[in-house]
Structures are given as C-alpha cells and as structure tokens.
C-alpha cells in the first residue's frame, strides 16, 4: 500500500513539475532559513553552558551610587571576590579576570598586539572547564610570571614547536613562562581569552597590591571581572541578604565620606550573554534580536507551508477526478488522506535533503554575517539531523492535511458527473487570505529593512556636535614616547597637511573617566560623579566643538591650565546653573575630607556633543587642561590629504623612538564601531525581507497560475462578449492589486508600531519613519508582485476564447 502511495506521489510530482518545483523551492528556502536561525538562536541561548558547574557560577557585578548618580558595572572592586569567599561559607571558590587592552607581545623578533589577555587567579580551572592540551593545569598559574595559552595562541607564537617552558615577552619588560596550553575558548563563551597570566605576577609590580589588598579604598576602585562558584546547596540570594553586614564591615566608612553607596549584583553564568546590560561589559548578545529572529524563523516556515496548502487546494479541480475514481473503486477517505499527506511528506523530504545541502554551502557566508563559527560537521549531529527531519515531517503533515481533508471530501458521484471539484467560494477566500498573510509579512519586513537602513544612515550622518571627519586618533601606550607628547605634537603641526592636533585622556566615543568632584550649588559645594576629559589647549578646537557661551581655553590668560573648565550644555542644566554657568566653581581631585583639590571656574559652555553612541543620552561632561600628557593624540588633517598626513605622522612616530609599531584609528570609524550590531541587523533584515518576499512571490505565482486556469472559461466568455486582451489583463491584475493593497494597509501600522518600539528601546536618538519609506515598500511589493503574476495573466488574457469554451 505504502509503495502505491509513494509511486502515486512521485508520479504526481513529476506530472506537475511547475507546482512541485515551486513547492520544493519554497519549502527548501523556508527550511534553510529556519536551520540557520535555529543554529544562531541555539548558540546564543546556550552561552557558557559547557561549563560543568554553570548553574552554580555567578558573575558578580557592581551597583554604585555616587551623590545622586546611579551606575551599574559588569566589573567589581579588586578584592570583592576574595572577600566574599572569606566572609560567606556559600562561596566555594572565586576567580578574577583583569583584562589588558592592546598588549604588545613579543616572541623572539615577532610582535603581536593582543586584546584578550587576562591576569587571572590560579583557581580559574577549578571554577571553569577548559580542556588541557599540553603542560599541567595543576598550579599552572600559581607562580609569578606564568602564562597559559590557548591552542591558537600557542600555534600563532610557536608554530608546531612545544610551547611549554617557552618565554612570552609582554609590554617590553615582562617575561612569562608558558606552563600549559588549553583548547581554544568555545565561541559561545561570553568571556573569550587568548592567554591567562598569573595574578601573582602583579605583586612584583607597582600597583600590584591592588589585587590582594583588602584596605577600604581598594573596595572603591573597580576594574575586573569576577566569578563566584557557590556550594552545591547554596543560593546567591542568601549572599545578597547578608551583604549589608559585609558592606558595613568593608565599605561603609569610606562610602559615607564619599557620599556613595554600593550594592552587590550577580548574574548566573549562562545568563550573562543575553541579559547583561551593564557598563564596562564584554560584548553581549541582544535578547530582543533573538526573539525577532525566532519569530521570523517560524513565520518563514509558515509562509512556505502556506504555499503548499495554497497550491495543493488550488489544484483540487484537477485532482477531483482522480479522487472520484479512487473512491468508486473502493478507496475510503482515510486512505485518500494518507495518500495526500504522503505527497506532502515526499516534497518536504526532498526539501529537507536539499536544505541540508544548501545550509552546508551557505555556512561560511552565514558565519561572516553572524560572527559565529559553525562547521557542518559541528552541526550535523544525529540529534540535529533528527530534529530538522522531525520539523520537516511536521511541516509536511500540517501543510498536507488541509488539502488532504479537502480533496478527500469530494463526492465521487458529483465528481464523475463533472460537477464537483470546482473549488468553492470558501477555499477561494482561504487562498486569498493565505496570500494576504504572506504579503503582510513580506511588507512588514520590507518596511523594517528600509527603516533600519534609514536609522543606520541617521546614526552615521547625524550632527554629533563635533567633526568626526578627517581626524585620526593615535594611542600613546609607550610611556617614554608619551612624555614627549608636546614636542611630538609641535613636530606634527609643521606639516602643511596637518591642521591641528591635541592630546587628551579621551575623545568622543571613548570617554570612560568618571570621578567624584565638588560642584557649586546654591549654598555649598556638593559631591557629584562627573564624566571628564583631561586635555590640552587645542582639544576643543581640534574637535570643533561649538561654544554656546563663554570662550575656549587660551594660553594668554595665564591661569587656564589650572583654573579653567569647559562644560557641555547638559552639565550646565543638570548642575542647576542654566544660563549662568560662566564663573561657577568645580573642585576636582580633593581629598576625602574635602581639603585640597584643584578649584576651577567655568569659562565656556559647548553645545552638547554625542561623546557616546546614539544609543545613549548625552550626559554632563567637563574638560580641563591636564598637567601631563595623556593617552590619546588626535590629529586633524586637511580634507583630501589623509595619505600625506598619515605618512608624515608615521615617520614622526618612528623619529620620536616609539617602541610600538605605528597604529591609528579614524575618529569616524571609532564612532561607527558602536553601530556594528545595527549594521549586521540591517544586512540580516535585508536578507530576511528578500526571503519572505520571495516565498510570498512563489505563493503568488502559484495563485496566479491557478486563477488563470480556473478563470479560463470566464475569460473566454468575456472575450467573446467584447473584452480585449487589455481588459482581461486589467481584470486579473485588479484582483491581485487589491490583495497586495489590503496586505499593505494591515502591514503599515504593525510595522510602524514594532519598529518604533525597537528604536525607542534601543536608541535615545533615532530617525523618524518617513512616509516615503513606507510608500516605497508598498510599491516594491506591488511592482514585484504584479511582475510575478504577469506571466500567467498575459498568457491567460491572450488565449483564444475558442479553446476555453470548447472544453465545456
């Protein structure tokens, strides 16, 4: 029996090549999209679950109040983790990771810049699971100047030689001995490292005591990631409950003096990636996107199933006779249902095989797009194949069942007399409804794509309050080079291609310095935590800040280097100064008892500039002259003379004996880096919108072919009664025109509502949705839709009516 079903299914498929192809293509695209999104989502939601104890590991985090300012950080005070272990029996073990940025690593005469090196406690492998490839994990980070490499780092530095015992030179003056090599950190780990250096090393260096000292002031300085492993029967809440006593003991006295307080937060290891929204965090995922993509994956599957149902019922007329015959010779309804479902299953099975093939071909591009590292061998596990197979079967059954029940319901008598099998009004409307849903989804996606890309343009082109173009930023890590910053800058300015240069502790898009200072209020000076930039005289000029009040720094004033401060508009507003900011006092760098410090008066107010990405609101920021050279040198060159300028800068860099290789960043790129996620989303939306539109078009193609077929007689009658080919085309187009128009009318409010939600939650500054973006998406859907059906419409409309009327 089964053989008969299969045979009949295969023959049917072969006979209706056009429909079968449309269905298989649609289902395959649906499945491929589903598989890729599934892989992505599964990867995102299983972050860090490969650590055996992940349910007992928490990352501890900071919640600070300074004055009236609240801030949450992913990093904690240096001694927090060991102190927790000391005080709370619930804590079985702790480990800390202190990251080093842009570290210069030398192996022999080869140089590398590394960003994923961490100083780590020796307990790291007791808390986390990393498989050992060489050396020994036992005490591998206990001694000073020891380092553990990942497999890739070891290969990069030492090739195929044995790395154990070899020396890694860091920052020109620290030697580390390799004690172990572990497997590369899995991609779905929120904290990825290339090497771990022993914390003990730091004890021998200035500032090293930070790590182990439990003096009160060490608790008010945050700087590292820390994880606690709880005992099997403990929970994090009991630590939170008892934390006030801990605070009392270690932190309160100093906190009160600072007018500050601290609270401990924690996130379970596997939740960090998707839920954390803290300052100073490692790159995290975005749960909103996970939700969007999951929904999209389901929708695309739904669209592909709809296509199948649509075309299968549309072909009912043609199948009716077969159904009648089978019934007459003894098939019961149940057998027919099985038969039609097996046809659907055959198609989905073919689509399943094709989708695996296509997925494997697309995987590399998908990795580039998603930033993941899937391999086909990695994903083609029996579980996974079975799961996707299961889903294919479910799609087959769902999409096969409606046509099956519908077709099998025909009465044999009527069918054979030629009366039944004309698809009724109900199924006609159902089909239109299904196509309507497809276009609804496609149009929502098109609108989303256009608006996301508008938003991206907006982010890149908005007036930020400073000029990000024609500007390069140099990092001066080499301390002996940094000491010559003034001379270096003078040297740079001698080149005609260079317009101006400045030295500062931060630039827009890189401003992390927050400090408590005293700010003048009505009757008193009050503590406030304020973001600041220490800079030289040329910083506001080089950045091209616009002054709304007062003046720029001026060497001729004599005292600007110690007694002047420039603030932004938001600072003037939030400090309660309004339009009278000029002359107000800020005391920076005072002692805990409020003595000493540098008392400065406001000399100028600059127009607010976006020193963070447009995801964030503009906050108060102040800038004043630094007593010594700072980390960053910003150089503005003449428009169009970038190459000459860079060449000169590099040459000067070497002349001044910088021990680091020349490296620079464009200020505009630094600014746009924050929009990487949006850039990716924009590309993804474009792809997904194309896929949904394409599947909807397949549906439309099927429907139009069916319409053309089922209306052949009507078209013939109309032509005999005087309709010209053009009249008929208009008649057929009109039906689809309305379908698409109605989808559009429903899609617009939904799209606008969803997109507005997304933009409001993700950005403080966002573009409005332009009416023409919406109109364009409608037009795109309409034009592509009508173009798709035109083949069948033209064919049907130009057919000779004699043919169609003869068949009656």
């Amino acid at each position, binding site marked *: 029996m089964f053989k008969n079903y299969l045979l009949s299914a295969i023959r049917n498929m072969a006979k209706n090549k056009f429909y079968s192809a449309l269905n298989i293509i649609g289902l395959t695209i649906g499945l491929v999209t589903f598989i890729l999104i599934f892989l992505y989502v599964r990867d995102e939601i299983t972050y860090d679950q490969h650590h055996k104890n992940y349910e007992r590991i928490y990352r501890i985090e900071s919640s600070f109040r300074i004055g009236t300012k609240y801030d949450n950080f992913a990093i904690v005070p240096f001694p927090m983790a060991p102190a927790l272990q000391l005080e709370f029996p619930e804590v079985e073990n702790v480990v800390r990771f202190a990251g080093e940025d842009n570290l210069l690593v030398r192996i022999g005469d080869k140089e590398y810049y590394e960003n994923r090196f961490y100083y780590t406690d020796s307990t790291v492998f007791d808390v986390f699971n990393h498989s050992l490839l060489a050396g020994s994990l036992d005490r591998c980070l206990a001694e000073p100047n020891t380092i553990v490499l990942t497999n890739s780092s070891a290969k990069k530095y030492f090739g195929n030689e044995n790395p154990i015992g070899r020396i890694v030179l860091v920052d020109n003056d620290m030697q580390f001995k390799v004690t172990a090599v572990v497997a590369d950190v899995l991609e779905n780990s929120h904290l990825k490292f290339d090497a771990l250096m022993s914390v003990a090393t730091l004890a021998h260096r200035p500032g090293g005591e930070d790590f182990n000292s439990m003096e009160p002031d060490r608790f008010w300085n945050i700087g590292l990631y820390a994880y606690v492993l709880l005992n099997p029967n403990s929970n994090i809440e009991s630590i939170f409950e008892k934390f006030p006593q801990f605070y009392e003991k270690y932190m309160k006295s100093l906190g009160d003096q600072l007018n500050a307080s601290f609270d401990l937060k924690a996130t379970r290891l596997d939740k960090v990636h998707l839920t954390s929204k803290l300052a100073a965090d490692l790159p995290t995922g975005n749960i909103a996107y996970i939700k969007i993509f999951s929904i999209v994956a389901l929708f695309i599957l739904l669209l592909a199933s709809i296509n199948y149902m649509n075309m299968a019922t549309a072909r009912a007329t043609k199948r009716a006779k077969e159904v009648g015959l089978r019934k007459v010779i003894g098939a019961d309804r149940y057998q027919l249902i099985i038969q039609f479902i097996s046809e659907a299953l055959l198609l989905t099975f073919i689509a399943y095989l094709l989708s695996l093939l296509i997925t494997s071909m697309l995987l590399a591009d998908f990795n580039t797009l998603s930033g993941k590292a899937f391999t086909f061998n990695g994903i083609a596990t029996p579980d996974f194949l079975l799961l996707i197979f299961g889903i294919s079967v479910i799609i087959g059954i769902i999409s096969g069942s409606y046509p099956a029940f519908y077709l099998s319901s025909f009465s044999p008598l009527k069918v054979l007399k030629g009366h039944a099998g004309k698809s009724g009004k109900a199924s006609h409307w159902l089909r239109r409804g299904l196509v309507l849903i497809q276009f609804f989804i496609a149009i929502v996606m098109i609108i989303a794509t256009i608006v996301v890309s508008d938003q991206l343009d907006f982010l890149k082109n908005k007036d930020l309050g400073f000029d990000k173009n024609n500007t390069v930023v140099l990092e001066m890590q080499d301390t002996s080079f940094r000491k010559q910053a003034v001379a270096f800058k003078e040297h740079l300015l001698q080149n005609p291609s260079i317009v101006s240069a400045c030295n500062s502790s931060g630039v827009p898009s890189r401003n992390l310095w927050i400090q408590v200072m005293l700010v003048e209020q009505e009757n008193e000076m009050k503590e406030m935590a304020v973001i600041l930039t220490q800079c030289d005289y040329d910083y506001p000029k080089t950045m091209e800040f616009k002054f709304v009040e007062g003046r720029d720094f001026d060497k001729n004033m004599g005292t600007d280097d110690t007694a002047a401060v420039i603030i932004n508009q938001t600072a003037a507003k939030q400090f309660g100064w309004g339009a009278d900011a000029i002359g107000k006092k800020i005391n920076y760098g005072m002692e805990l008892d409020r003595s000493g410090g540098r008392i400065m008066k406001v000399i100028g107010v600059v127009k607010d500039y976006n020193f963070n990405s447009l995801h964030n609101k503009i906050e108060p920021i102040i800038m004043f002259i630094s007593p010594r050279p700072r980390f960053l040198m910003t150089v503005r060159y003449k428009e169009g003379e970038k190459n000459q300028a860079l060449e000169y800068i590099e040459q000067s860099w070497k002349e001044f004996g910088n021990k680091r290789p020349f490296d620079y960043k464009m200020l505009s790129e630094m600014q746009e880096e924050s929009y990487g996620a949006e850039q990716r989303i924009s590309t993804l939306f474009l792809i997904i919108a194309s896929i949904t539109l394409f599947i909807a078009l397949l549906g439309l193609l099927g429907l139009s072919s069916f319409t053309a077929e089922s209306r052949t*007689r*009507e078209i*013939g*009658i*109309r*032509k*005999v*009664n*005087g*309709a*010209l*080919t053009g*009249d008929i085309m208009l008649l057929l187009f009109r039906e689809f025109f309305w379908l698409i128009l109605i989808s559009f009318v429903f899609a617009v409010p939904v799209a606008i509502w969803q997109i507005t939600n997304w933009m409001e939650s993700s950005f403080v500054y966002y573009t409005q949705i332009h009416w023409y973006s919406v109109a364009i998406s409608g037009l795109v859907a309409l034009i592509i839709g009508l173009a798709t059906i035109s083949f069948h419409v033209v064919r049907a409309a*130009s057919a*000779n*009516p*004699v043919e169609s*009327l*003869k068949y*009656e």
Partner: protein
Amino acid sequence: MIKSVDLTRIFLTEEVETTALRQVTFDIKQGEFVAIMGPSGCGKSTLLNIIGLLDNPTKGKYIFLDHDVTNSSERQRAKLRKQNIGFVFQNFNLIDELTVFENVEMPLIYLGIPTKERKQRVEEVLEQMQISHRKKHFPGQLSGGQQQRVAVARAVVSNPKLILADEPTGNLDSANGEEVMNLLSDLNRKGTTIIMVTHSQRDAEYSHRIIRLFDGQILVENFQSN
C-alpha cells in the same frame, strides 16, 4: 454581409493534422436567418468560430461587413466583433459569479457605454426577454430556459448586426427550446442577421436557408420558403 471564398481550416497538433474545413464558399446577406447543420465533427463549430471572428482560416478569404478580415489581428477582430456580433451558446456560458443584470451588462461595458445608458438598455432587453424579475439572481439560481434567455439578452443588448447561435436549444427541453427559437425569429424579423448551428431539424425550420456540412465541405444548401 458575409462573404467567404475557399475557406480552409487545418488544425495542427503534435501528431496529427486535421482538416476541419475544406474550401468552403458561401455568402450571407443582411437580414438572413441561416442554419448550419451536419453530423458531429463536420466542422460546424469551426465555421461558426471563423464567421464570429474568433478564429482565422488557414487558407481562403473571409470578408465581414466589407472588411477583409482573413489575416487581421486579434485586436482588429475583437473590435469588429464587439461592435457587430452577439453570441449564444448551447451551454449558455454565463459567468457564475455575476448576476443576470451584470452578465447582460458586460458587452456594453466593453463598448464603453456610460453607466446610465447601460442600465436603461439592460432593463429594456431583460424586459423584452421577460426575465427582468430575475435580474438580481445568479445564473445558478435559474432554470435552463431562463439562463438561455439571459444569454440571448446578453447577445442582443449591444444591438449587433449578427447573432451567432451554437446549438441554442441543445440543453433545453422542447417548450423552452421553442421559446428561444421564437425569440431568435423575432429578432430576425426586426432585422438582425442570424446564423445558427443546430442538430435539430425542427429548429432549422425557423431559418430561411440551411447549409449542410459534411467532412468540412458544404454538401448542399436548401432554401426554405417559410
């Protein structure tokens, strides 16, 4: 009105070549009522299709209202057709989704006649066919005789010079068949030329002339004297 010289129509399919008409020559004058008779497959419908400008002859010459339409384009034929010819079919060929009124109105729409005038003319012709009480019904709700009256109404609503009827009574009982034939005779008396394909000798009696076809050729033409 109609002049055909050596009309030949050959149908080509992948495997066979069928000659449906062989060198058929005849004239039909304005105001005539002509019946075309013959056994199944003799080429009656093919001839009617060519006369009705739905099909082109393979060879020969066809002149319709002084236009040589032998090789005219579909567009030109459609234009001549909608201004001059009304069709009545054996199986009525009404559009199921349109009401009686809308079915009858259709040719006028394609002639570009204004709404108001359309309404008036449809009402008139429905009245004339005694079907106006059913104008809001759909074809499926009517008897065969009523459906054929609607089809005739549709054929005459545009005041065509020529009505082509392909077995107009074939699907009707004798009472209804007679009624339709009387309608056609009436129209003929008022000046409309009628060409009718039929199997029925009784229906053929209504005509002035019978053209008998056999194997694609005119066998005989009988002039009647009624």
